[in-house]
């Protein structure tokens, strides 16, 4: 039985196709304004990779910000559950997932069976989200993928303190004007983001075995800064792309559902 998981976020769309618990293919693309469009397109990308058509898919679970708008889903699940499920399946020792998405950051704690025990979202403002990094990358004219490697070259410690994404952008621009190095500014941004996210995770109590999911997890700068801010070593997800974790979890839900219905 072939199933799929589709995760439509505010910045990116992801799809995973799975057969009997094995991933056949996955796809990631930048989200369009309308989630339905993103869903169709990203699903097609994954299908093409697996050389399948929509007719081959027995069940689809949708998740993410635009989950209600995915035209072809059979069921929707929250990102909280999907990321937890995906991470737990990838690495059964995981007890906490920190997911930095486009609009929000979330920390989720799981019990020994992988069930969600507690979770928390970022407070009101959007600082501490993927959007924060995106705006900054734009302001600094640095490609999103290069943020991590660039920040690694930092030599001077700077700090960015503004809570508001928009105002933080101004702060960044003034640092540029002061002639500060881009690498140092980026490093400061990563630490600022990491500290905000760390306080989220801590408020629901961090133990050990923490992983990071979502696209931002691929940014080594944030990854390391978060480890530092939490005071524990973040675990890498056994070589699985952390960005597809939500879609993977959704696919796992689809798999379960199919097994139940057998």
């Amino acid at each position, binding site marked *: 039985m072939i199933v799929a998981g589709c995760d439509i976020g505010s910045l990116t769309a992801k799809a995973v196709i799975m057969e009997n618990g094995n991933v056949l293919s996955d796809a990631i693309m930048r989200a369009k304004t309308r989630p339905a469009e993103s869903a169709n397109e990203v699903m097609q990308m994954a299908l093409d990779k697996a050389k399948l058509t929509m007719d081959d898919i027995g069940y689809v679970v949708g998740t993410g910000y635009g989950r209600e708008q995915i035209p072809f889903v059979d069921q929707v699940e929250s990102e909280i*559950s999907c990321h937890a499920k995906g991470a737990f399946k990838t690495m059964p020792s995981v007890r906490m997932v920190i997911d930095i998405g486009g609009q929000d950051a979330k920390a989720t704690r799981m019990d020994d069976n992988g069930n969600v025990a507690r979770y928390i979202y970022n407070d009101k403002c959007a600082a501490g989200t993927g959007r924060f990094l995106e705006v900054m990358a734009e302001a600094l004219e640095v490609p999103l993928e290069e943020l991590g490697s660039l920040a690694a070259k930092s030599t001077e410690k700077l700090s960015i303190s503004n809570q508001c994404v928009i105002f933080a952008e101004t702060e960044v621009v003034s640092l540029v004007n002061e002639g500060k190095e881009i690498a140092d500014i980026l490093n400061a941004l990563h630490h600022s983001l990491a500290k905000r996210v760390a306080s989220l995770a801590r408020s629901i109590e961090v133990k050990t075995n923490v992983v990071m999911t979502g696209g931002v997890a691929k940014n080594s700068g944030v990854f390391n800064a978060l480890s530092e801010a939490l005071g524990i070593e973040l675990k890498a997800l056994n070589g699985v792309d952390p960005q597809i974790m939500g879609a993977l979890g959704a696919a796992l839900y689809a798999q379960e559902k199919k097994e139940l219905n057998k």
Partner: protein
Amino acid sequence: MRPEIQEYNYDWMMGSTLKAAAALPTGTKKETELTYRYIPYYKNVAQSFYSAGAPGVQTLELLAKYYENILTAHAQGKKICATTFCNSPVILYAMDIVPVTFEILTAIGAMVWKRGMFDYMDFCCETGMPETSCSSQRGAQGAVLSGLSENIDFVICDTPGVCDTNANAFAYLSEYLDKPFFQLNYPSCIGDDRSQKYHVDDYKEMIKFAERHSGNKLDYDRLAEVLEEVNKQDAMIADLEDMLMLKPTPVPPIYNLALYAGRFCFSGHPQYTKLLESMVKTAKGYADAGISGLKSKEEKLRVFMCYIDHYTVNVNFYNYMEERGIANVGSILSRNFRDNNLYVKDMPGSSYSVDMSSPEAMLDTIAQMNARLPMVRSIRGPYDKKGMWLEESLACAKMYNADCMIYNGTPGCRNTWGMVKPFARDIEKHGYPCHIMNDDAFDDRVESWDATRERLDEFFKVRGLL
């Protein structure tokens, strides 16, 4: 403030709206249909009250009456006192003073009008109040500050020591309008002799203040009458709270709102007694039949609101609970901590009793009663100390067999936002899933209802509750 808003007297507008709403169910079907056509936004709100049966309509009548009292006060030679919902109106009724409770009026406005109390709230900020101060005052307060409501004569506020933003709003109002101000102040503890005495000393000062500015002497015979009424009311409140324990609970979610709205408006007033009688009667009917008070008659989940539960923007939250089959087993606002309530047994020193044997005893009674109003009682001190927020919430959750707890408030509630994260952690440690709502109970410009609802749904689903 928009010019069209300034065309109308606020009290009159609210009072007539509610009066008309209360009269609607007695009209013919045709009349009702026609009216609904003219109030497309209010239709759902009105129906949520009508569907609560007689108590629903009586709540509307009670609120209409409250405005009528304000509107006619000065013509009858009575003084109007601006006060907070944490101050029992009992003493004011005993002294023939008309209370104006901002929080209740703001809540009503948020329910009744499509744009809620936005214009009034913003007006407060236009005068200079910070936009971070609590929306529950800013609504009705805006009407008073802008001169669109009846003039108030003096201010009595009893939140110093309990809630800065609240106390600050009243202090600001008194200064802005140059009206006499009195503050009842509470220490950070309750139940010990020292704080008990402080309550009484402070209360006596307040009576002196009220006498001075109303020109009325406190009449102890009248006070006895009012307390007699309180006695009756407390017994019925205890009945309702006992019924909350039944599974399924026969008490509809919106009754909680009516219960405390009534108490904050008309404690010791026969109008409230009538409402309680009718709520008890209806709920008892359901209890005898062993059915849930929910419209669907199927109780899927029991929620205890560990802070306020009056998300009143278009009554969305109550309708949501009905839709999802969620029983509201109360909030800290519904508790009155009268000694005849079951939940006070585990919290010695937390309750008050009614003693009418002498004027002194009556004063003690009313001072101690006042010191046990919802916020005044449980968030005045460190949340994990004796008799405070955590103890109360856990006692109630256990007693009412709650499946989870939900925190709801306004961004203005500095006091609870200062401690709610560790509080929620402790609640979770006791086995209750706890959700913190990030909304504003009276202003959906802070978080849209769609977003609030989505987060609630997610919580119930992810935590395996629904």
